[in-house]
Protein backbone atom coordinates (compact mmCIF):
# COMPACT_ATOMS: atom_id res chain seq x y z
CA UNK A 1 0.00 0.00 0.00
CA UNK A 2 2.92 2.34 0.79
CA UNK A 3 5.94 1.86 -1.48
CA UNK A 4 9.34 3.51 -1.19
CA UNK A 5 11.79 2.91 -4.00
CA UNK A 6 15.40 4.09 -3.64
CA UNK A 7 14.42 7.31 -1.85
CA UNK A 8 17.16 9.90 -1.36
CA UNK A 9 16.89 13.09 0.63
CA UNK A 10 19.41 15.74 1.65
CA UNK A 11 19.24 18.73 3.95
CA UNK A 12 21.85 20.97 2.37
CA UNK A 13 25.11 19.00 2.32
CA UNK A 14 23.79 16.41 4.72
CA UNK A 15 22.30 13.36 3.02
CA UNK A 16 19.84 11.91 5.54
CA UNK A 17 18.21 9.23 3.36
CA UNK A 18 20.61 7.27 1.17
CA UNK A 19 18.36 5.05 -0.88
CA UNK A 20 15.49 3.71 1.19
CA UNK A 21 13.50 0.89 -0.41
CA UNK A 22 10.64 -0.55 1.58
CA UNK A 23 6.96 -1.33 1.40
CA UNK A 24 4.09 -1.53 3.83
CA UNK A 25 1.18 -3.88 3.12
CA UNK A 26 -2.41 -3.19 3.99
CA UNK A 27 -3.12 -4.05 7.62
CA UNK A 28 0.56 -4.31 8.48
CA UNK A 29 2.20 -2.69 11.49
CA UNK A 30 5.78 -1.65 10.75
CA UNK A 31 8.04 -0.17 13.40
CA UNK A 32 11.05 1.90 12.42
CA UNK A 33 13.83 1.95 15.00
CA UNK A 34 17.30 3.42 15.01
CA UNK A 35 19.52 6.02 16.64
CA UNK A 36 18.45 9.67 16.61
CA UNK A 37 19.46 11.48 13.44
CA UNK A 38 19.32 8.25 11.46
CA UNK A 39 16.51 9.53 9.21
CA UNK A 40 13.58 7.62 10.76
CA UNK A 41 11.32 10.62 11.15
CA UNK A 42 12.31 11.95 7.75
CA UNK A 43 10.98 8.78 6.13
CA UNK A 44 7.57 9.33 7.72
CA UNK A 45 7.55 13.00 6.80
CA UNK A 46 8.35 12.16 3.19
CA UNK A 47 5.50 9.64 2.99
CA UNK A 48 2.84 12.29 3.57
CA UNK A 49 4.74 15.08 1.87
CA UNK A 50 5.66 17.21 4.87
CA UNK A 51 9.14 16.97 3.37
CA UNK A 52 10.03 16.61 -0.27
CA UNK A 53 12.56 14.01 -1.45
CA UNK A 54 15.28 14.40 -4.03
CA UNK A 55 15.42 11.06 -5.83
CA UNK A 56 13.55 7.78 -6.04
CA UNK A 57 9.82 7.42 -5.67
CA UNK A 58 7.25 7.11 -2.92
CA UNK A 59 3.71 6.02 -3.70
CA UNK A 60 0.59 5.44 -1.64
CA UNK A 61 -1.92 3.05 -3.19
CA UNK A 62 -0.24 3.59 -6.53
CA UNK A 63 -0.45 7.39 -6.31
CA UNK A 64 2.95 9.12 -6.46
CA UNK A 65 3.72 11.35 -3.48
CA UNK A 66 4.58 14.81 -4.81
CA UNK A 67 4.19 17.58 -2.26
CA UNK A 68 3.92 20.23 -4.96
CA UNK A 69 1.07 18.49 -6.80
CA UNK A 70 -2.63 18.95 -5.92
CA UNK A 71 -2.84 15.17 -5.36
CA UNK A 72 -0.93 15.59 -2.08
CA UNK A 73 -4.21 16.56 -0.37
CA UNK A 74 -5.62 13.24 -1.52
CA UNK A 75 -2.68 11.39 0.00
CA UNK A 76 -2.81 13.32 3.26
CA UNK A 77 -6.50 12.59 3.74
CA UNK A 78 -5.71 8.88 3.33
CA UNK A 79 -2.55 8.77 5.43
CA UNK A 80 -2.91 10.48 8.81
CA UNK A 81 -0.05 11.48 11.07
CA UNK A 82 0.49 11.56 14.82
CA UNK A 83 3.31 13.82 15.98
CA UNK A 84 5.80 13.55 18.79
CA UNK A 85 4.65 16.86 20.25
CA UNK A 86 0.92 16.23 19.58
CA UNK A 87 0.44 19.51 17.69
CA UNK A 88 -3.18 19.87 18.72
CA UNK A 89 -4.82 23.19 17.91
CA UNK A 90 -4.82 24.99 21.29
CA UNK A 91 -7.51 27.49 20.32
CA UNK A 92 -10.09 24.79 19.65
CA UNK A 93 -11.77 22.31 21.96
CA UNK A 94 -10.83 18.64 21.97
CA UNK A 95 -13.90 17.72 19.90
CA UNK A 96 -13.25 20.57 17.46
CA UNK A 97 -9.70 19.30 17.01
CA UNK A 98 -11.00 15.86 16.13
CA UNK A 99 -13.64 17.02 13.64
CA UNK A 100 -11.60 19.80 12.01
CA UNK A 101 -10.36 17.74 9.07
CA UNK A 102 -13.57 15.86 8.21
CA UNK A 103 -15.57 19.07 8.51
CA UNK A 104 -13.37 21.58 6.71
CA UNK A 105 -11.19 19.47 4.42
CA UNK A 106 -13.46 16.58 3.52
CA UNK A 107 -16.62 18.67 3.98
CA UNK A 108 -18.65 15.85 5.48
CA UNK A 109 -22.07 16.56 7.02
CA UNK A 110 -21.74 18.20 10.41
CA UNK A 111 -24.07 16.05 12.50
CA UNK A 112 -22.50 12.85 11.24
CA UNK A 113 -18.95 14.10 11.87
CA UNK A 114 -19.74 15.28 15.39
CA UNK A 115 -21.22 11.91 16.24
CA UNK A 116 -18.16 10.12 14.89
CA UNK A 117 -15.89 12.54 16.76
CA UNK A 118 -17.57 11.77 20.07
CA UNK A 119 -17.41 8.05 19.38
CA UNK A 120 -13.67 8.30 18.66
CA UNK A 121 -13.05 10.26 21.86
CA UNK A 122 -14.88 7.52 23.73
CA UNK A 123 -12.71 4.97 21.97
CA UNK A 124 -9.52 6.63 23.27
CA UNK A 125 -11.08 7.00 26.72
CA UNK A 126 -11.62 10.76 26.68
CA UNK A 127 -15.37 11.15 26.07
CA UNK A 128 -15.72 13.47 29.05
CA UNK A 129 -12.99 15.83 27.78
CA UNK A 130 -14.77 16.75 24.53
CA UNK A 131 -15.26 20.39 25.51
CA UNK A 132 -11.89 20.93 27.23
CA UNK A 133 -9.05 22.78 25.51
CA UNK A 134 -5.83 20.83 24.77
CA UNK A 135 -3.57 22.83 27.14
CA UNK A 136 -5.78 21.65 30.02
CA UNK A 137 -4.95 18.01 29.30
CA UNK A 138 -1.95 15.88 30.26
CA UNK A 139 0.51 14.91 27.53
CA UNK A 140 -0.89 11.38 27.40
CA UNK A 141 -4.42 12.69 27.01
CA UNK A 142 -3.33 15.14 24.33
CA UNK A 143 -1.66 12.36 22.37
CA UNK A 144 -4.80 10.25 22.55
CA UNK A 145 -6.79 13.19 21.22
CA UNK A 146 -4.24 13.47 18.42
CA UNK A 147 -4.83 9.80 17.59
CA UNK A 148 -8.58 10.41 17.56
CA UNK A 149 -7.96 13.36 15.24
CA UNK A 150 -5.98 11.11 12.91
CA UNK A 151 -8.69 8.43 13.01
CA UNK A 152 -11.45 10.96 12.30
CA UNK A 153 -10.07 11.31 8.79
CA UNK A 154 -10.94 7.60 8.30
CA UNK A 155 -7.46 7.04 6.91
CA UNK A 156 -6.13 3.94 5.23
CA UNK A 157 -2.91 4.20 7.24
CA UNK A 158 -1.53 6.20 10.17
CA UNK A 159 2.06 7.38 10.58
CA UNK A 160 3.27 7.73 14.17
CA UNK A 161 6.36 9.91 14.71
CA UNK A 162 7.77 8.95 18.13
CA UNK A 163 4.31 9.23 19.69
CA UNK A 164 5.44 8.55 23.25
CA UNK A 165 8.84 10.30 23.32
CA UNK A 166 7.49 13.54 24.79
CA UNK A 167 5.45 11.83 27.51
CA UNK A 168 6.08 11.27 31.17
CA UNK A 169 6.87 7.56 31.64
CA UNK A 170 3.66 6.80 33.54
CA UNK A 171 1.54 8.16 30.67
CA UNK A 172 3.19 6.10 27.94
CA UNK A 173 1.13 3.00 28.65
CA UNK A 174 -2.24 4.64 27.90
CA UNK A 175 -1.08 5.82 24.49
CA UNK A 176 0.53 2.50 23.60
CA UNK A 177 -2.65 0.75 24.71
CA UNK A 178 -4.72 2.78 22.25
CA UNK A 179 -2.20 2.05 19.50
CA UNK A 180 -2.17 -1.66 20.25
CA UNK A 181 -5.95 -1.74 19.94
CA UNK A 182 -5.75 0.00 16.57
CA UNK A 183 -3.26 -2.59 15.41
CA UNK A 184 -5.55 -5.39 16.59
CA UNK A 185 -8.39 -3.81 14.60
CA UNK A 186 -6.28 -4.10 11.44
CA UNK A 187 -5.15 -0.51 10.94
CA UNK A 188 -2.11 -0.07 8.72
CA UNK A 189 0.51 1.65 10.87
CA UNK A 190 4.07 2.90 10.45
CA UNK A 191 5.54 3.71 13.84
CA UNK A 192 8.85 5.41 14.54
CA UNK A 193 9.53 4.50 18.15
CA UNK A 194 12.01 3.79 20.90
CA UNK A 195 9.52 1.51 22.68
CA UNK A 196 11.11 -1.86 21.94
CA UNK A 197 8.49 -3.72 23.96
CA UNK A 198 5.75 -2.27 21.78
CA UNK A 199 7.69 -3.08 18.62
CA UNK A 200 8.24 -6.66 19.73
CA UNK A 201 4.64 -7.32 20.79
CA UNK A 202 2.65 -5.34 18.24
CA UNK A 203 4.69 -4.87 15.08
CA UNK A 204 4.63 -7.34 12.22
CA UNK A 205 7.95 -6.11 10.91
CA UNK A 206 10.75 -3.91 12.18
CA UNK A 207 13.14 -1.80 10.11
CA UNK A 208 16.42 -0.80 11.71
CA UNK A 209 17.71 2.42 10.16
CA UNK A 210 21.17 3.86 10.70
CA UNK A 211 22.96 6.56 8.74
CA UNK A 212 20.13 6.92 6.23
CA UNK A 213 20.02 3.28 5.11
CA UNK A 214 18.01 0.25 6.19
CA UNK A 215 20.64 -1.82 7.94
CA UNK A 216 18.39 -4.72 8.78
CA UNK A 217 14.73 -5.63 8.55
CA UNK A 218 12.58 -8.59 9.37
CA UNK A 219 9.77 -9.99 11.48
CA UNK A 220 9.63 -8.04 14.75
CA UNK A 221 10.39 -10.82 17.21
CA UNK A 222 13.19 -12.30 15.15
CA UNK A 223 14.93 -8.98 14.56
CA UNK A 224 14.63 -7.77 18.14
CA UNK A 225 15.52 -11.08 19.76
CA UNK A 226 18.24 -12.25 17.35
CA UNK A 227 19.59 -9.25 15.45
CA UNK A 228 21.99 -10.34 12.71
CA UNK A 229 23.89 -7.14 11.89
CA UNK A 230 26.50 -5.93 14.40
CA UNK A 231 25.13 -2.35 14.29
CA UNK A 232 21.64 -3.62 15.14
CA UNK A 233 23.08 -5.71 17.95
CA UNK A 234 25.01 -2.74 19.29
CA UNK A 235 21.99 -0.40 19.07
CA UNK A 236 19.64 -2.83 20.79
CA UNK A 237 22.15 -3.57 23.53
CA UNK A 238 22.45 0.13 24.29
CA UNK A 239 18.69 0.77 24.19
CA UNK A 240 17.71 -2.26 26.25
CA UNK A 241 20.58 -2.12 28.74
CA UNK A 242 21.63 1.52 29.01
CA UNK A 243 23.68 0.84 32.15
Amino acid at each position, binding site marked *: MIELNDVHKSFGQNEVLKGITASVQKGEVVCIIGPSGSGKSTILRCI*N*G*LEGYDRGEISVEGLKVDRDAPSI*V*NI*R*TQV*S*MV*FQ*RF*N*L*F*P*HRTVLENVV*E*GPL*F*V*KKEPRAQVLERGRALLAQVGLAEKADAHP*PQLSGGQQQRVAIA*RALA*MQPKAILFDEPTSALDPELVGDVLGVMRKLADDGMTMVVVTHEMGFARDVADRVLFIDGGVIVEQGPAKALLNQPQHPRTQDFLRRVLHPL
Partner: protein
Amino acid sequence: MKGFWHDAVEFFPILMNGVALTIIVTIGSLLLSTVLGLIWAMMRVSGIKALSMLSASLINVIRGIPIIVLLFYLYFVMPDLGVTLSALQAAILGLGIAYSAYQAENFRAGIEAIDKGQIEAAQSIGMGWWLTMRRVVLPQAVRIVLPPYGNVMIMMLKDSSQASTITVAELALQGKLIASSTFKNTSVFTLVALMYLTMSIPLILLVRHFEKRAGKK
Protein backbone atom coordinates in the same frame (compact mmCIF):
# COMPACT_ATOMS: atom_id res chain seq x y z
CA MET B 1 -9.31 79.27 35.71
CA LYS B 2 -12.73 80.83 35.52
CA GLY B 3 -11.83 82.19 32.11
CA PHE B 4 -10.90 78.71 30.99
CA TRP B 5 -14.29 77.22 31.91
CA HIS B 6 -16.01 80.05 30.13
CA ASP B 7 -13.91 79.49 27.00
CA ALA B 8 -14.40 75.76 27.27
CA VAL B 9 -18.17 76.06 27.21
CA GLU B 10 -17.95 78.42 24.27
CA PHE B 11 -15.47 76.45 22.11
CA PHE B 12 -16.52 72.93 23.01
CA PRO B 13 -19.26 72.58 20.36
CA ILE B 14 -16.96 73.77 17.55
CA LEU B 15 -14.14 71.51 18.71
CA MET B 16 -16.57 68.60 18.78
CA ASN B 17 -16.96 69.01 15.02
CA GLY B 18 -13.22 68.50 14.87
CA VAL B 19 -13.48 65.46 17.10
CA ALA B 20 -16.01 63.93 14.72
CA LEU B 21 -13.60 64.30 11.80
CA THR B 22 -10.69 63.03 13.89
CA ILE B 23 -12.67 59.88 14.64
CA ILE B 24 -13.69 59.44 11.00
CA VAL B 25 -10.09 59.81 9.80
CA THR B 26 -8.78 57.47 12.51
CA ILE B 27 -11.32 54.71 11.95
CA GLY B 28 -11.15 55.01 8.16
CA SER B 29 -7.38 54.81 8.03
CA LEU B 30 -7.33 52.10 10.70
CA LEU B 31 -9.59 49.88 8.59
CA LEU B 32 -7.65 50.60 5.41
CA SER B 33 -4.26 50.00 7.05
CA THR B 34 -5.52 46.74 8.57
CA VAL B 35 -6.75 45.38 5.24
CA LEU B 36 -3.64 46.50 3.35
CA GLY B 37 -1.35 45.33 6.15
CA LEU B 38 -2.97 41.89 6.08
CA ILE B 39 -2.49 41.70 2.32
CA TRP B 40 1.19 42.70 2.56
CA ALA B 41 1.73 40.23 5.41
CA MET B 42 0.04 37.38 3.51
CA MET B 43 2.20 38.14 0.50
CA ARG B 44 5.28 38.08 2.74
CA VAL B 45 4.50 34.64 4.17
CA SER B 46 3.01 33.16 0.99
CA GLY B 47 6.20 31.29 0.17
CA ILE B 48 6.02 32.69 -3.37
CA LYS B 49 9.24 34.58 -3.91
CA ALA B 50 7.94 37.24 -6.30
CA LEU B 51 5.03 38.14 -4.01
CA SER B 52 7.20 38.18 -0.94
CA MET B 53 9.81 40.45 -2.54
CA LEU B 54 7.16 42.77 -3.95
CA SER B 55 5.61 43.12 -0.54
CA ALA B 56 8.97 43.68 1.16
CA SER B 57 9.87 46.48 -1.28
CA LEU B 58 6.44 48.08 -0.96
CA ILE B 59 6.75 48.12 2.81
CA ASN B 60 10.19 49.70 2.61
CA VAL B 61 9.05 52.39 0.18
CA ILE B 62 6.07 53.25 2.37
CA ARG B 63 8.19 53.27 5.52
CA GLY B 64 10.76 55.53 3.89
CA ILE B 65 8.32 58.34 3.07
CA PRO B 66 7.09 60.73 5.79
CA ILE B 67 3.32 60.67 6.28
CA ILE B 68 3.06 64.37 5.58
CA VAL B 69 4.77 63.98 2.19
CA LEU B 70 2.45 61.10 1.34
CA LEU B 71 -0.52 63.29 2.20
CA PHE B 72 0.79 66.19 0.08
CA TYR B 73 1.37 63.79 -2.77
CA LEU B 74 -2.15 62.38 -2.67
CA TYR B 75 -3.81 65.75 -2.26
CA PHE B 76 -1.72 68.06 -4.41
CA VAL B 77 -0.03 65.81 -6.99
CA MET B 78 -2.73 63.28 -7.80
CA PRO B 79 -5.01 65.93 -9.40
CA ASP B 80 -2.22 66.55 -11.95
CA LEU B 81 -2.46 62.85 -12.79
CA GLY B 82 -6.21 63.15 -13.23
CA VAL B 83 -7.24 61.74 -9.83
CA THR B 84 -8.93 64.33 -7.66
CA LEU B 85 -9.52 63.33 -4.06
CA SER B 86 -11.36 65.25 -1.37
CA ALA B 87 -9.19 66.27 1.58
CA LEU B 88 -10.87 63.66 3.75
CA GLN B 89 -10.37 60.90 1.17
CA ALA B 90 -6.73 61.83 0.73
CA ALA B 91 -6.21 61.87 4.51
CA ILE B 92 -7.73 58.43 5.04
CA LEU B 93 -5.90 56.99 2.05
CA GLY B 94 -2.55 58.53 3.03
CA LEU B 95 -2.66 57.54 6.68
CA GLY B 96 -4.02 54.11 5.76
CA ILE B 97 -1.19 53.44 3.33
CA ALA B 98 1.47 54.85 5.65
CA TYR B 99 0.35 52.70 8.57
CA SER B 100 -0.18 49.57 6.45
CA ALA B 101 3.60 49.07 6.51
CA TYR B 102 3.69 48.90 10.31
CA GLN B 103 0.56 46.76 10.43
CA ALA B 104 2.11 44.36 7.93
CA GLU B 105 5.29 43.91 9.98
CA ASN B 106 3.21 43.39 13.10
CA PHE B 107 0.97 40.81 11.42
CA ARG B 108 3.94 39.01 9.91
CA ALA B 109 5.64 38.75 13.30
CA GLY B 110 2.43 37.31 14.75
CA ILE B 111 2.07 34.76 11.96
CA GLU B 112 5.70 33.70 12.18
CA ALA B 113 5.44 33.25 15.94
CA ILE B 114 3.04 30.32 15.46
CA ASP B 115 4.69 26.96 16.12
CA LYS B 116 5.66 25.15 12.93
CA GLY B 117 4.07 22.02 14.33
CA GLN B 118 0.69 23.70 14.05
CA ILE B 119 1.16 24.21 10.34
CA GLU B 120 2.36 20.63 9.88
CA ALA B 121 -0.64 19.31 11.79
CA ALA B 122 -2.92 21.33 9.53
CA GLN B 123 -1.15 20.03 6.42
CA SER B 124 -1.28 16.48 7.70
CA ILE B 125 -5.08 16.58 7.75
CA GLY B 126 -5.04 17.82 4.17
CA MET B 127 -5.43 21.57 4.66
CA GLY B 128 -4.13 23.81 1.91
CA TRP B 129 -2.37 27.13 2.44
CA TRP B 130 -5.46 29.27 2.76
CA LEU B 131 -7.40 26.89 5.01
CA THR B 132 -4.32 26.55 7.25
CA MET B 133 -4.13 30.34 7.53
CA ARG B 134 -7.83 30.80 8.16
CA ARG B 135 -8.47 27.95 10.57
CA VAL B 136 -5.14 27.46 12.34
CA VAL B 137 -2.60 30.28 12.00
CA LEU B 138 -4.58 33.53 12.00
CA PRO B 139 -6.87 32.72 14.95
CA GLN B 140 -3.77 32.06 17.05
CA ALA B 141 -1.80 34.98 15.66
CA VAL B 142 -4.58 37.41 16.64
CA ARG B 143 -3.79 36.99 20.33
CA ILE B 144 -0.14 37.84 19.73
CA VAL B 145 -0.88 40.72 17.39
CA LEU B 146 -3.56 42.50 19.42
CA PRO B 147 -1.42 44.40 21.98
CA PRO B 148 0.80 46.06 19.33
CA TYR B 149 -2.31 46.59 17.22
CA GLY B 150 -3.81 48.59 20.07
CA ASN B 151 -0.67 50.73 20.20
CA VAL B 152 -0.99 51.42 16.50
CA MET B 153 -4.58 52.56 17.12
CA ILE B 154 -3.34 55.10 19.66
CA MET B 155 -0.62 56.36 17.32
CA MET B 156 -3.13 56.66 14.49
CA LEU B 157 -5.51 58.66 16.61
CA LYS B 158 -2.76 61.17 17.29
CA ASP B 159 -1.31 61.10 13.78
CA SER B 160 -4.74 61.86 12.34
CA SER B 161 -3.83 65.44 13.27
CA GLN B 162 -1.48 65.42 10.27
CA ALA B 163 -4.60 65.54 8.11
CA SER B 164 -4.79 69.19 9.15
CA THR B 165 -1.93 69.90 6.74
CA ILE B 166 -4.24 69.14 3.82
CA THR B 167 -7.15 71.19 5.19
CA VAL B 168 -9.15 68.46 6.95
CA ALA B 169 -10.73 70.43 9.79
CA GLU B 170 -10.18 67.79 12.43
CA LEU B 171 -9.56 68.54 16.08
CA ALA B 172 -6.07 70.04 15.76
CA LEU B 173 -6.90 72.29 12.82
CA GLN B 174 -10.24 73.30 14.37
CA GLY B 175 -8.29 74.34 17.49
CA LYS B 176 -5.73 76.24 15.47
CA LEU B 177 -8.48 78.13 13.62
CA ILE B 178 -10.22 79.14 16.85
CA ALA B 179 -6.95 80.12 18.50
CA SER B 180 -5.82 82.31 15.64
CA SER B 181 -9.12 84.15 15.51
CA THR B 182 -9.59 84.59 19.30
CA PHE B 183 -5.94 84.62 20.50
CA LYS B 184 -7.00 82.40 23.42
CA ASN B 185 -4.14 80.00 22.81
CA THR B 186 -3.93 78.63 26.34
CA SER B 187 -7.60 77.73 26.68
CA VAL B 188 -7.96 76.34 23.19
CA PHE B 189 -4.87 74.14 23.09
CA THR B 190 -5.37 72.91 26.64
CA LEU B 191 -8.85 71.90 25.59
CA VAL B 192 -7.56 70.23 22.43
CA ALA B 193 -4.94 68.29 24.39
CA LEU B 194 -7.53 67.16 26.93
CA MET B 195 -9.84 65.99 24.19
CA TYR B 196 -7.10 63.89 22.54
CA LEU B 197 -6.23 62.46 25.94
CA THR B 198 -9.88 61.60 26.61
CA MET B 199 -10.03 59.68 23.36
CA SER B 200 -6.70 57.91 24.01
CA ILE B 201 -7.47 56.67 27.52
CA PRO B 202 -10.05 54.04 26.50
CA LEU B 203 -7.58 52.78 23.89
CA ILE B 204 -4.77 52.64 26.45
CA LEU B 205 -7.02 50.60 28.74
CA LEU B 206 -7.90 48.36 25.82
CA VAL B 207 -4.21 47.68 25.12
CA ARG B 208 -3.70 46.79 28.77
CA HIS B 209 -6.59 44.35 28.53
CA PHE B 210 -5.11 42.77 25.39
CA GLU B 211 -1.72 42.44 27.05
CA LYS B 212 -3.18 40.70 30.08
CA ARG B 213 -5.11 38.29 27.87
CA ALA B 214 -2.12 37.52 25.66
CA GLY B 215 0.03 36.95 28.74
CA LYS B 216 -2.46 34.58 30.32
CA LYS B 217 -2.79 32.13 27.43
